């Protein structure tokens, strides 16, 4: 034993004397990571990306990115004698003749769906907990870029097999491009190498899919993790946790073991899905033929919102100097993604504008303590999910047995009404939860013990919270809306910044005007005194407690 340790020590010492890494290692191996299930969402994305890359490499060995027309003579009888592209034929070969090929295709595809779903869930977690605040705004931007790259990688992959679904998807992309004024026709012509569909698109998407997008994703993931490492992970507030520390387990050995184990769980779940649930059976869709389109054609879920936007957009087209301006395609296909992505990317700065808060934050917000931010997030989810449903409106019409036109009309209205309603309802729920927290802190838990006073009055006894629990509910800051200064100073000189200040105040009131503040020390003292009084003598406290509800 000791010889092994001595031997290993000698090797380590040899290396350390030359690259002097032991200090660095000592510091970094003990790096602390907090534990919470929601912190693993990003890891699901990372690990599913790894399995996508691995299975993707396998697929490249057989896939032929060529649109050369051939007559299929392969192993799948119901297609024999049919004209198709080499890309589609090699996908059939992968599915039916290559050993393990179908499993690998399904691992790749399920992995992709889960990768994007995990990224989205991770992003929502970061949003709702305020983890994007200073100093992590740049990492938020990197994250938004990753999501965009993920969608791009997914869509280029979806388009490769040259089956009926993927070709129809490309046709819609082409339509979106054509709707761009002035340059649209050129863009489409450059991408497809002439008229759609041409013979080039698959061989052009291929390097984008297997080299450019994955390469950029790996670069961005590296940047993402380096920043995370440098800035340290955020943690939830509570006793012993502050803006100056991170409470959790050290990277080595605990976190390495957990993350390593979790990696295999993610692999396992994806392979389990791939082995038991069929995905994208291209042999049923048939080879792509520009003259053919199938009912129930949808893109993969992460592009579904765009398809949905196209489906619910009312017809709108103008003619300008003899050139059509097809707003019914331009708005949903080109403008809408920009309208979603830009505020998403800039949100940290937008919120900073409202709060005026430029301090660093390492402790996460509970969503209820930011009612407006949480409301905005839920409103966005509502908006997005409706577009999603719209993208499958024919599917849902069949399932629910209602006319597809009703679903479309419902969503046309809902995109405005339900989205607004979701904001309002979520904000009210948050305020309600805040009020409940405040009540808990001031009056303690309900014990279920009913007291009867000598004068016959019934009242419930409240037990005070544990110190730690009370701290968890009250560590957050008081959020007073910003007040603009007077329009003129004491000498009647107008404040040159008054308009800006007033605008900022309005924004600040929007964010914090309705927030239920945690009790002040005096209020707490008074409430405890009341409560004490109540337990002791059991009268004259009802107005106050019930009035608080």
């Amino acid at each position: 034993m000791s010889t092994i340790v001595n031997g290993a020590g000698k090797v380590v010492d040899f290396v350390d004397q030359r690259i002097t890494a032991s200090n660095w290692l000592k510091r970094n191996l003990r790096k602390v990571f907090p534990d919470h299930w929601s912190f693993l969402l990003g890891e699901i994305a990372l690990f599913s990306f790894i399995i996508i890359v691995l299975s993707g490499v396998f697929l490249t060995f057989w896939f032929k990115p060529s649109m050369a027309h051939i007559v299929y003579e392969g192993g799948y009888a119901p297609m024999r004698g049919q004209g198709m592209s080499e890309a589609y034929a090699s996908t059939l070969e992968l599915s039916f003749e290559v050993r393990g090929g179908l499993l690998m295709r399904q691992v790749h595809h399920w992995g992709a769906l889960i990768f994007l779903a995990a990224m989205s869930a991770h992003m929502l977690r970061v949003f709702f907990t305020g983890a994007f605040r200073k100093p992590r705004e740049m990492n938020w931007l990197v994250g938004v870029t990753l999501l965009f790259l993920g969608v791009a990688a997914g869509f280029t992959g979806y388009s490769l097999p040259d089956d009926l679904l993927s070709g129809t998807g490309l046709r819609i992309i082409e339509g979106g491009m054509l709707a761009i004024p002035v340059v649209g026709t050129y863009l489409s012509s450059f991408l497809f190498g002439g008229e759609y569909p041409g013979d080039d698109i698959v061989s052009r998407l291929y390097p984008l899919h297997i080299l450019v997008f994955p390469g950029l994703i790996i670069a961005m993931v590296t940047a993402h993790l380096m920043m995370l490492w440098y800035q340290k992970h955020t943690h939830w507030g509570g006793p012993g946790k502050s803006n100056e520390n991170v409470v959790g387990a050290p990277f080595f050995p605990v976190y390495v073991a957990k993350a390593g184990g979790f990696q295999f769980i993610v692999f396992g779940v994806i392979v389990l899905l791939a082995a038991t649930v069929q995905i994208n059976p291209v042999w049923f869709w048939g080879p792509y033929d520009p003259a053919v389109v199938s009912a129930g054609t949808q893109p993969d879920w992460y592009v579904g919102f765009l398809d949905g936007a196209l489906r619910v957009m009312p017809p709108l087209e103008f003619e300008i100097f003899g050139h059509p301006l097809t707003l019914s395609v331009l708005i949903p296909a080109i403008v809408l993604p920009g309208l979603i992505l830009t505020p998403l990317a800039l949100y940290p700065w937008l919120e900073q504008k409202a709060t005026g808060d430029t301090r660093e934050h390492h402790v996460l917000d509970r969503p209820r303590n930011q009612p407006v931010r949480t409301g905005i997030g839920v409103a966005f989810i509502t908006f997005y999910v409706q577009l999603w449903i719209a993208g499958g409106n024919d599917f849902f019409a069949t399932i629910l047995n209602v006319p597809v036109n009703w679903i479309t009309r419902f969503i046309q209205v809902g995109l405005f009404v339900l989205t607004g309603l979701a904001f309002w309802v979520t904000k009210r729920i948050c305020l309600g939860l805040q009020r409940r927290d405040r009540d808990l802190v001031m009056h303690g838990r309900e014990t279920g013990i009913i007291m009867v006073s000598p004068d016959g009055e019934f009242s419930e006894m409240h037990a005070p919270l544990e110190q730690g629990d009370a701290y968890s509910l009250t560590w957050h800051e008081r959020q007073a809306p910003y007040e603009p200064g007077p329009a003129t100073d004491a000498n009647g000189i107008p404040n040159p910044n008054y308009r800006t200040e007033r605008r900022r105040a309005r924004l600040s009131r929007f964010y914090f005007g309705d927030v239920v503040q945690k009790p002040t020390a005096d209020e707490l003292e008074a409430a405890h005194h009341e409560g004490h009084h109540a337990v002791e003598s059991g009268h004259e406290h009802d107005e106050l407690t019930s009035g608080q509800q």
Partner: protein
Amino acid sequence: MFSTPTGRSGRTRRRTLSTWRRHPLAAVFVLIAMLFTTGGAYAALAPKSEDLQAASSTKIQEGKELFAIGCASCHGLGGEGQVREDGTVIGPSLIGVGAAAVDFQVGTGRMPMAAPGAQAQRKPVAYTDAQIEALAAYVASLAPGPELPEEQYLDVSEGNVARGGQLFRTNCAQCHNTTGQGGALSMGKFAPSLTGVEPKHMYEAMVTGPQAMPVFSDETLTPEDKQDIISFLKSVEEEPNPGGLGIGRVGPVAEGLWAWLIGIGLLIGTATWVVTRSSKS
């Protein structure tokens, strides 16, 4: 008389026959002989036409009676259809729709309709096979229309599946989906799922164009084309899902739901489990 030359050598017979042919009464004789032969053969072989006529007219009569009870309230007593004053159709005219339309509509339970709606729904069949036959005979007697399909085109083992698939994708998939799962059309109309539909009914639907479906006449799709399409549909129906659960074979919507509900759901479940494992560092 033809039997006389038998037994002689061919050459003599030919000579004898040619001499007979020049006989002045030869033509008369041949005519008489032919008349007797055809007449006798017809009498022996032809179906009893009176019986047949009687049977078919009883069937039409029976069909007419069934029609008057079950169909005439919407389609009119003579199958001429009924239209309200404001132009809404109560029941379309059935003159010229043919036996195939009746066999399809009644044979799949679509007719009689349970309630007026965007489209007649498939439901349990209300009539017996004999009754459907009678109804079909009656409607077919109103005016010529598509006949019942010939048996030979319904044999799905004979069709070319690959070609049928191509024809199906080109002509049918835009409403019925590439695997015949069906799909939604405007205002509550829909293309039904073709899984489990009898070859006969598929054929009849193509020639008659029920509900929102266009007619695929024999000029558009030959009977052999139709046979290929039906063979393809039956082949897809029987084809297993090599990748595991089929989840409806409807593509990305179902797949997305699975990725979120099952995939991310399971992973978040395991993530919660991972963080609850106590760690002693």
